[in-house]
């Protein structure tokens, strides 16, 4: 992936008056709502800690949970697919769609599908993929990335939405009432839902003991996609597992307060297989695609593994002083705010996320609110360290190359290192990395031999 131009896009965002107006209110409003919603619990801090423990414990037995989930989901009649990377995941979905007699696909908001570029890919393959979450739909039609995890198009001025809906024939004349615009969109979507043949959704939690998947929402679009189409395809990252329904519910109880500031979202669906014999709605086929796409690599390193605990609530965005200045666009990928700083570099590569990794003052506000117990500053430092090490490794390569130009063999290496060692070590000290020894073994050995020879 090409480098994410965080600075350039952030500069644009700082000059975007609409975005700035919204950013003056949005994070603060979400924070106040979150605090009010959490205050209903007898011990909010204890509840957050317990949720974090549940996520951490689940990660430690992740492969076993995945196996148990697979076994139980299959017993429920769910088809399980595994995808190593984005390409495999896209092809699995394409294969499933290919078997259907429809070129239109309805989908709900899912960060994973954004991460793997599913909609764009299906478009190239001749499928019309329609986002059914209102904000996501507006982003899709306007070609915008999400501004905020909760309200992807919340920054789009009402006049622009009105012009868009006018263009699409949802309304007959300009409308500046957001509610009237929402109602107009409802009519369009209801027709689409009633004809839907395939529904694509994400997954908030997957429960190993029952082979169930949970979806959390307010609009009802996910429910439609799980009720009308004959085929439901739900994509989930490998990290979504928890052992039991009780665990899932414990963490679920903290999701809406952390996300929208609600006590609970309007709808939570718990699916355990396709419709049963004799039922008249719900999918005849339920497919769950379990996607790795870099997650097992994150898992391999116990230092980065805790990032996988994230439940995508967005609370960290709302307390981040950097996000509060620039909004979601500069983050350049599916994930924004502190969650993006932690995830994106590990998914797209450290070098591509170089500027992004600097967009943090390490204030730690994100860590305080995270219901998954993620220590963002520690992870960001770890990633910066990895990046610096990578840079220095390539600097070392350049050192050898440049210094050795025109020379040959041991002479080239010796001379090159002698010239560049001080610069290399200065950088190494700055980044706290292992330094080059003052002398190479060969130099030290040579010096020792000379010493011995001396009378």
């Amino acid at each position, binding site marked *: 992936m090409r480098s994410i131009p965080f600075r350039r896009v952030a500069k644009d965002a700082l000059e975007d008056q609409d975005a700035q107006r919204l950013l003056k209110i*949005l994070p603060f409003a979400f924070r106040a709502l979150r605090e009010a919603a959490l205050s*209903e619990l*007898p*011990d909010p801090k204890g*509840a957050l800690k*317990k949720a974090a423990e549940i996520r951490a414990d689940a990660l*430690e037995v992740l*492969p076993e949970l*995945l196996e148990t989930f697979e076994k139980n989901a299959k017993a429920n009649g769910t088809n399980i697919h*595994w*995808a*190593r990377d984005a390409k*495999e995941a896209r092809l699995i979905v394409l294969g499933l769609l290919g078997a259907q007699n429809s070129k239109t696909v309805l989908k709900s908001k899912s960060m994973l599908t954004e991460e793997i570029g599913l909609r764009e890919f299906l478009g190239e393959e001749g499928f019309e993929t329609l986002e059914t979450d*209102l*904000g996501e739909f*507006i982003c899709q039609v306007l070609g915008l990335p999400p501004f905020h995890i909760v*309200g992807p198009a919340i920054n*789009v001025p009402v006049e622009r939405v009105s012009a868009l809906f006018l263009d699409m024939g949802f309304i007959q004349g300009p409308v500046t009432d*957001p509610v009237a*615009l*929402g109602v107009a969109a*409802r009519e369009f979507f*209801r027709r689409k*839902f*009633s004809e839907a043949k395939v529904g694509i959704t994400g997954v908030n939690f997957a429960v190993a003991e*029952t*082979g*169930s998947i949970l979806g959390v929402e*307010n*609009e*009802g*679009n996910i*429910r*439609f996609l799980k*009720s009308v189409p004959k085929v439901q395809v739900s994509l989930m990252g*490998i990290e979504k597992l928890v052992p*039991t*329904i*009780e665990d899932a*519910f414990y963490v*679920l*109880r903290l999701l809406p307060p952390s996300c929208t500031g609600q*006590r*609970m979202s*309007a*709808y*939570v*669906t*718990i*699916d*355990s297989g396709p419709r*049963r014999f004799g*039922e*008249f*709605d*719900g999918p005849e086929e339920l497919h769950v695609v379990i996607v*790795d796409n870099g997650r097992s690599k994150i*898992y*391999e390193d*116990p230092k980065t593994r805790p990032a996988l605990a994230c439940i995508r609530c967005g609370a960290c965005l709302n307390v981040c002083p950097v996000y509060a200045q620039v909004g979601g666009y500069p983050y350049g990928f599916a994930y924004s705010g502190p969650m993006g700083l932690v995830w994106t570099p590990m998914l797209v590569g450290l070098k591509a996320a170089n500027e992004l990794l600097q967009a943090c003052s390490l204030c730690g506000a994100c860590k305080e609110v995270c219901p998954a117990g993620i220590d963002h500053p520690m992870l960001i430092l770890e990633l910066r360290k990895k990046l610096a090490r990578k840079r220095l490794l390539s600097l070392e390569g350049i050192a050898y190359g440049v210094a050795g130009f025109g020379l040959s063999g041991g002479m080239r290496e010796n001379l090159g290192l002698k010239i560049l060692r001080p610069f290399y070590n200065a950088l190494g000290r700055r980044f706290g990395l292992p330094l080059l020894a003052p002398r190479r073994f060969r130099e030290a050995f040579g010096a020792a031999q000379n010493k011995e020879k001396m009378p």
Partner: protein
Amino acid sequence: MNARDAILGRLKKAPRESRQPERLGDFQARAPGKDGLTERFIERLKQNSAMVILEKESGDVGSALLKALQSEGIERVVFTRAADALLGPAFQEAMQTSGVVGTLAPEDEEGLKRAAFQAYAGVSVAKWGVSELGALALVHGKENPRLLSLAPPLSVIVLKAGSILEDLRALAIALAPPLAMPSQVTLVSGPSQSADIQGVPFFGMHGPKKLLAVVLQDGPSKEG
């Protein structure tokens, strides 16, 4: 190697701590006491923007519900078979004289879809209530299809007060194995909603614009 084995193999090879799970207490529960369950359920459901009728099970549920439907201007209602059974024949009788047209959910896929999308109101049954959340837990199936609490602009959900549970933990216990999970359980906490345009909230984005819960209890009747 196939994708499954490659992924699981990689995960299993990773160094893992043998974490001692901290046995933390339940920081979410604030028990209202058995008597307060229904009160808190209703209070919170109303806070979640739902309308609530509390009626004695043996009382005149029919006229209370019909009054509510009429005040919403509802002309056509579709009932799930589970709702019909719970409300009983007295309700059917009351409806016949009320001018509200009530039908049972068709038992075929296309018919059900058409009825759900065309009805002004759908009446379903919740198997449990969750007091702490003010939420209704619907178990879907042949007798209680998904679409009737989703497609009509007004969703009416009937619940027995005796099945109101304290919190999500109690619901998890009620749902947990060895009982087989139903194909779908839906937790409903309010009407469909969105605030995606400029943060301005409204009800009825895709699903019901209004939610009416009918709570049947043994005891003196009152309207909420």
